């Protein structure tokens, strides 16, 4: 009885999740975000029907990635990511533990900055990527319990971002 109960969680629950039709995106095939940004989905991510022209939303196990199409760069990335960090730190509804912003580079060689935060039940990460005077933002929101399962794929998606052309201001 103990073994069968444990096997239910090890085998049956994941099998049930697999049975549910998530309309997963094809791994490796670039997906257009707006008119001038491409991203490459990672394993397990599905396109949300809530996606609009203004934002593309991917989902995976109760997790969301919101990708905003390329826009003209409004202010330096360091300032923007610091603003995002401050907004989380000053959120009165949740006690976020906010990490220091760090920088990174996409596979296409575009620079970016990111900040991560964790509350009691939720983890979030914001990225800003820039390219020739334009920028794209990506926000991941995940239950802490599934963060380990999705964060690597989310990072892969962000690193795959490619700007098609420079956005005119």
């Amino acid at each position, binding site marked *: *009885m*103990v*073994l069968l*109960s*444990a096997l239910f*969680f*090890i085998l049956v*629950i*994941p099998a*049930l*999740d697999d049975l*549910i039709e*998530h309309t997963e995106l094809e791994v490796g095939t670039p997906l257009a975000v707006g008119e001038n940004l491409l991203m490459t989905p990672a394993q397990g991510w599905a396109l*949300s029907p*809530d996606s609009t022209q203004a934002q593309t*939303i991917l*989902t*995976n*196990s*109760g*997790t*969301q990635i919101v990708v905003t199409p390329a826009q003209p760069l409004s202010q330096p990335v360091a300032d923007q990511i610091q603003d995002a960090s401050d907004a989380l730190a000053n959120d*009165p*509804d*949740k*006690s976020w*533990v906010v*990490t*220091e912003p*760090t920088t990174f580079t996409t596979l296409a060689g575009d620079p970016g900055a990111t900040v*991560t935060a*964790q*509350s*009691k*039940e*939720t*983890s979030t*990460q914001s990225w800003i990527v820039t390219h020739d005077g334009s920028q794209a933002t990506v926000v991941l929101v995940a*239950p*802490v*319990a*599934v*963060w*380990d*399962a*999705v*964060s690597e794929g989310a990072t892969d998606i962000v690193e795959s971002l490619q700007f098609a052309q420079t956005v005119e201001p």
Partner: protein
Amino acid sequence: MSTPASRSPRVRPVRVSPRTYSFIDLRSGVFWVIVLLATYGASQVIPLLASTLVKHPDAGMLAAILWGLYALAFALIVYRLELFERRSPVNILGAVVWGATVCGGIGVVAAPAMHGIVAAWLGEQSQWISAVSAPLVEEPLKMLGVIALALIPGARIRSAADGLFYGAIIGLGFMIVENYLYTMQAATAANGNYTTVFDVVILRGVISGLWSHATLTAIAGAGVGYFFNSTRPRRQRWGVMLTALALAMVLHAFFDSPLLDTNVYAATIAKGVPVLVMLLAILQVVHTREREILANLARHTVPDDLVSPLDFALLSDRGIRRSVQASARKSLGLPGALAMRQLQHRQLALLSAAHEDGMDSERSDDAVALLLSAQATLAQLRVEAGVDRPDPAAR
């Protein structure tokens, strides 16, 4: 006319006499299932733990030390909740291992899948995904650990209080591994920053930790202890066990829900207080039941010259035991207080042995021998202090 007894016959659960001193029973199939599941769980959890330590060894060690100290403090509180009995350290270790490896490891596989199922059901945008999916996986897995122990006679889960105690320890084991991994998630994102480690420990250990997994599994565990030991009809025992599990799940869901999330501190207190009150109420009930069981043993099973009903009245509460020791100190000095303390411990040990293994067991025989020795020591001190005359029969 049917009697109350015929309407709801009380059936004493079949008790298998323990053949080992702890849950480690090589002839028990359930023991080997625990070993198998712990091995599987470890194979899922250890790589996660190791990878964080390799990436940021200093932050990993700091997190391990902080959560280790936290576990120790919490375990001491749980240990103090034991009214009469000191449970086997081997069983306690087994409960920690179940929480840390079996629940932690299976959770790594089942939690994302359950989140996916619940997200498909409630919608990906729902704020309730974690609140619904986490209790559905974690609470049954933790309770399963108490059931596994209860199925091994050597673990001696002989009352609701035992179930509550081991439930709390399993919850603690799970909580520590989960919180360590969450701490290192944040620390990894912060490039191993120490401040982040301290911040997450405060968030998860202080702000949200006090009413967390240990408390919830203690509630479910009390139901398991009741199920395996009550003499009530089977339907009632099932009802109590499943209600306890449902209660733990509902409280967990409430705690993780977006309800009252206007201010994290106020929300944590508003959500945590009902959980704490519920635990204290259940603790009161199981302690009362435990006291009744031991009082019955003192009255009917254990000879009066070893533990009489009056003796048990003086053992039934920590405060009374301490005042009896203080009284012995007054008349016999420090050695008298220590001898009285030892006598009390040995009387309780005999009652526990009689309850768990039976009065005719080897364990009870050993407890009787130790109790007689403690009685002799105290009697000798009384004679030396002139409180009692020497017993002629003892010459």
